[in-house]
């Protein structure tokens, strides 16, 4: 493709209204956050992952893994809603599905950025994932499928932008399939470890998928709201309806997710291994109790429900705020899940060990998290700027 045709395409898709000094400042700000934040992770390769992250032998996974899972899950959700409205048409969310495809790509980039600096030797992965694959490994499938998904979605998005609707449709379907399978394998990474009763079990992969539908809808509401906010513009009726149906999906899945969380926790108290119960205790009354009750339950579930009811799905700022709180709650929920699965000593009762290990993420871990938020915010703003028109035009098929 020549430069000329490229710039012709961008002229078609870009939204010049966003070329304002304020937008420039915001974009540069998030670019800096990205660079500074991810530099924290790059330091791991210089000083050692074991020195700058607070992971231990007993708790090998921490906030970077949970944040990776959070972005990956959100990406899956966005991608699934977009694919459904592309394939089946007729859903009102189709109106904003192009934006959802873009944000799905961006969220998975946030996930990759996080895991890229978490894994000790990603360069080995590039080679040995290919020449020494283990088909029984969930991690292998998860990495491969997310890689595939992002490839498909990039082609899909290129198809959307260049007007190749058929290609976009087909790639969108493959991308969504890969995302769902990858999400399932991500759940499986935890669900297939009998050593960790808090994770082990058939429920977890479905739980992850439920969370994907929840986060996807919440992100769809939030990003669409923000897209009009930064333009200081009112949503058109069709976009309004699209966001409203995303809000409906969000409400429905919020209820499903609450039910799933409730039974998941109850199940630990009616029997099963002691380790699982002690892990659940961490959330109910132990070191993760504030996270759980305040952030997961109040901020992430109860207040959003109240806001949704008050908004009657009409008041967009209220709905968007509910979406934001849901995402905060889900972020913390992933953290609590990852931590609780490991913080009960496997040899509790020996060596005078505490009932729960303490884990506080390091400064550098927080840095990487900020970096990943930077990636998503920067990607969002750039998307609106460069592809803004594509996001509001009618569906591409």
């Amino acid at each position, binding site marked *: 493709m020549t430069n000329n045709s490229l710039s012709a395409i961008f002229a078609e898709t870009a939204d010049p209204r966003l070329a304002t000094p304020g937008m420039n400042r915001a974009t540069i700000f998030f670019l800096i956050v990205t660079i500074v934040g991810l530099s924290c992770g790059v330091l791991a390769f210089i000083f050692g992952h074991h020195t700058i992250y607070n992971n231990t*032998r007993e708790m090998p996974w921490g906030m970077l893994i949970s944040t990776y899972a959070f972005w990956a899950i959100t990406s899956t959700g966005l991608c699934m809603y977009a694919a459904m409205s592309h394939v089946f048409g007729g859903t009102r969310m189709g109106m904003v599905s192009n934006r959802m495809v873009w944000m799905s790509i961006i969220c998975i980039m946030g996930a990759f950025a996080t895991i890229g600096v978490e894994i000790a030797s990603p360069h080995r992965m590039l080679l040995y994932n290919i020449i*020494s694959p283990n088909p029984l490994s969930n991690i292998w499938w998860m990495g491969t499928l997310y890689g595939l998904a992002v490839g498909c979605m990039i082609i899909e998005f290129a198809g959307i932008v260049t007007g190749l609707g058929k290609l976009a449709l087909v790639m969108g379907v493959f991308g969504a399939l890969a995302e769902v399978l990858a999400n399932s394998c991500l759940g499986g*990474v935890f669900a297939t470890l009998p050593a960790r009763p808090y994770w082990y079990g058939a429920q977890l992969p479905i739980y992850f998928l439920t969370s994907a539908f929840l986060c996807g809808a919440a992100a769809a509401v939030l990003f669409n709201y923000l897209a009009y906010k930064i333009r200081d513009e009112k949503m058109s009726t069709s976009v309004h309806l699209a966001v409203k149906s995303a809000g409906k999906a969000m409400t429905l899945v919020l209820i499903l997710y609450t039910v799933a969380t409730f039974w998941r926790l109850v199940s630990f108290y009616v029997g099963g291994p002691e380790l699982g119960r002690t892990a659940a205790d961490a959330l109910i009354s132990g070191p993760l109790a504030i996270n759980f009750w305040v952030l997961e339950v109040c901020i992430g579930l109860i207040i959003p429900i109240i806001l949704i009811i008050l908004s009657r799905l009409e008041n967009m700022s209220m709905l968007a705020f509910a979406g934001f709180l849901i995402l905060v709650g889900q972020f913390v929920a992933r953290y609590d899940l990852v931590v609780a699965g490991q913080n009960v000593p496997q040899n509790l009762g020996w060596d005078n060990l505490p009932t729960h290990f303490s884990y506080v993420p390091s400064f550098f871990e927080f840095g990487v998290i900020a970096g990943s938020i930077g990636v998503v915010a920067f990607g969002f703003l750039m998307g609106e700027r460069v592809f803004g028109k594509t996001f509001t035009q009618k569906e591409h098929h």
Partner: protein
Amino acid sequence: MNIEELEKEKNEGIDSLPLQERRKFLKMGLSVTGVFLGGSVLSLTSISHASNQKNADMDIPAEGQYPYPKHYGMIMRQNRCVGCELCVEACKQTNHVPNDHGAWRTAIQEKITTENGSEKREFRPVLCNQCNRPPCVRVCPTKATYKDPETGIVVMDYKKCIGCKTCMAACPYNARYFNEEKYAIDKCNFCIDTRLAEGKKETACAAACPARVRIFGDLKDKSTEIYRLLHTPDSKIWVLRPDTGALPNVFYINA
């Protein structure tokens, strides 16, 4: 709970254990004779003994079901351990185990309880169980950790390790650590490279133990002490965390 107390525990009966679970141990040449503490401790005995019981649902597997030419295991005569940690030191020296970031291949766990006003100390040696169904091997994306086809020992191919740490999360026994020099995950390998390869018959820890707690050997070789101990009728043998289904090859007895 200490060992004597454990021995006083009520046998909950193997009926509470699924048939499948019992079959798994049969495949290792052992049969389950007791379940204690809600299944977290099993007592095991030799199959030959089990065959005398003429228990209808116990099908005795033919020899050679274990897929590797050698079947290395270790018995810990737990009540003999005095906690001197000479084994830990010998292991560090022999296998160049780094000194920090929680690196160890074998450790001595300690439990202090007070009974009738007097303090009671108990030691439990732990190391990688070289599981027959190792969760760490199953989860590794790049086959960086695998069962050695000759010995069944779970070993590392450091250059393939991407450092995802899934194996650490998957191991029920906390047997794996990050080796900063190799920049890869590391673990006990029964001294396969440092001693067995040189023809030595014992691991460094077993050789260093003054109380002869650790009996190492080939479970397939009927002349070994470990074989004899595992096949002593009526001895109470247990493994750690049998509920995870990893099928460990490190056994515990009081002898």
